[in-house]
């Protein structure tokens, strides 16, 4: 086994923890814990970005790290917590498909995404190209998180986690997107969050719950 430099080892560890957090989100029943996991994922992303910026000396990565810290670690989780409190759904927990089954599906997804990322990673020239597989896995796992949930709140958390995965993928394949794109995405996520927050209240007004199951019926009287 060849010796990898320590900062790269740390980066790899960050990537591994990101993947682990995605699994934790997949298995989490409680909405408050789910939001905390999302914040933790953002924090991991922030650390990874800082490390990469320091390693490659690319200054624009510091900006995106700051953006990650401000938006994904502080602003969005705070916003979500406020929403949870306002909507009074702190104690909501939703029945999942059985957890071992979901985990196994998740593991298969990870294997699939590692296979998917292998040829792409060989084209990239970055030091972190190996983490691309993990980024794809985080995206797909967030996807599964969204699919298996019925409450609007948890679906939004899954959506945000997917954005984390995309960001990490861009970082590991090309050392981050152009600055303007990154700002655009950050703004999009923030606005989407605000709009969805309004949506939550509307949905609850209409159906007395945040269960998206209710949206499936066309008529009210059934």
């Amino acid at each position, binding site marked *: *086994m060849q*010796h*990898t430099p*320590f900062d790269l*080892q*740390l980066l*790899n*560890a960050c*990537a*591994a*923890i990101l*993947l*682990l957090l995605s*699994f934790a989100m997949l*298995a989490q029943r409680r909405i408050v814990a789910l939001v905390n996991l999302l914040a933790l994922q953002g924090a991991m992303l922030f650390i990874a970005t800082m490390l990469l910026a320091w390693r490659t000396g690319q200054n624009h990565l510091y900006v995106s790290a700051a953006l990650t810290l401000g938006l994904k670690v502080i602003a969005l989780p705070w916003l979500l917590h406020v929403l949870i409190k306002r909507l009074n759904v702190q104690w909501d927990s939703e029945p999942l498909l*059985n*957890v*071992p089954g979901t*985990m*196994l599906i*998740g*593991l298969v997804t*990870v*294997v699939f995404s*590692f296979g998917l990322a292998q040829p792409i990673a060989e084209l990239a020239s970055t030091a972190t190209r*190996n*983490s691309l*597989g*993990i980024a794809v896995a985080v995206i797909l796992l967030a996807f599964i998180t969204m699919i298996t949930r019925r409450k609007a709140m948890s679906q939004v958390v899954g959506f945000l986690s997917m954005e984390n995965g995309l960001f990490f993928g861009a970082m590991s394949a090309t050392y981050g997107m152009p600055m303007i794109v990154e700002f655009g995405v950050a703004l999009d996520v923030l606005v989407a969050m605000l709009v969805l927050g309004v949506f939550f209240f509307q949905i609850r007004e209409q159906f007395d719950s945040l269960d998206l199951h209710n949206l499936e019926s066309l008529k009210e009287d059934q």
Partner: protein
Amino acid sequence: MSAVAWLTQFLEVLAALVLAPLFLGWVNACRAWLQNRRAPSLLLPYHGIRKLFHKDAVIAESASPLFRLAPYVVFGAMVAAAAVIPSMGTGLPFRSAADAIALVGLFAIARVFMSLAAMDIGTAFGTLGARRDMMIGFLAEPALLMVIFVASLLSATTALPLIAERLVIQPLALYPSLAFTAVAFTMVLLAENARIPVDNPATHLELTMIHEAMLLEYSARHLALMEWAAALKLFNYACIGFALFVPWGASIGSTGIGALALSLPALLAKLAVAGLWLALLETVSAKLRVFRAPEFMATAFMFAVLGLLVHLLLGA
């Protein structure tokens, strides 16, 4: 084979036999301290075993010879396992037999005999305990094997002593895969040794018992052997953990008697920390319902496979 190697081997088995009840006592004492209770004596497990050896055995009329044989087989399997785990030194004469997969097999033999013996009498609780134990066993075994495979991939061998050696010889590095598998291994350890999230070793309620329910019909020397074997199993698992994840301190290769002398305090220190850690884990977690146990084991399996995948992708 040099004399030192044989001495290591002998001392290792002796240490396992002597230290196992002490380790159990230490875990129980730590648990009592953490729960604000007065701790029982560290030597309590020794007293228990000694007391049981002095009693007359009572055996059910319907018991077959298997019932009498089982404690000796279980105890023997645990002693054999202790002989192949490199707890103090890696230059063992049994080194070529110290294959990790064979080790898992040894544990499986013990489990099968214990379950058969529990079913042999035909009481409801024995059968119930045996079935539950088999359920947990069949979920824990793949996770344990996965843990071992990750360590084997890192060092290209399934022999425990060699795995321990490679890890010490290699330059110190961060292995996310090993960290994941360490978590998985801890979960397997808790489940396999009937510790708290899965089973409560201190319970008196038969309906929630797993391990204890299988021993209900045993008495005197048979029970003593079974309890000693349980302590040995915990000790063995701890030592497998040391060999896989923190092999530093054990004497590496065929070194002299000095390294061997140093390895005993190292082992004791590691055991003390592991016991405290185990007690802490047990104190902060609540016992799961039996039907949640598969979830717990699935999580352990997931951790182990994740470690494997991360190793394959990142090479670390």
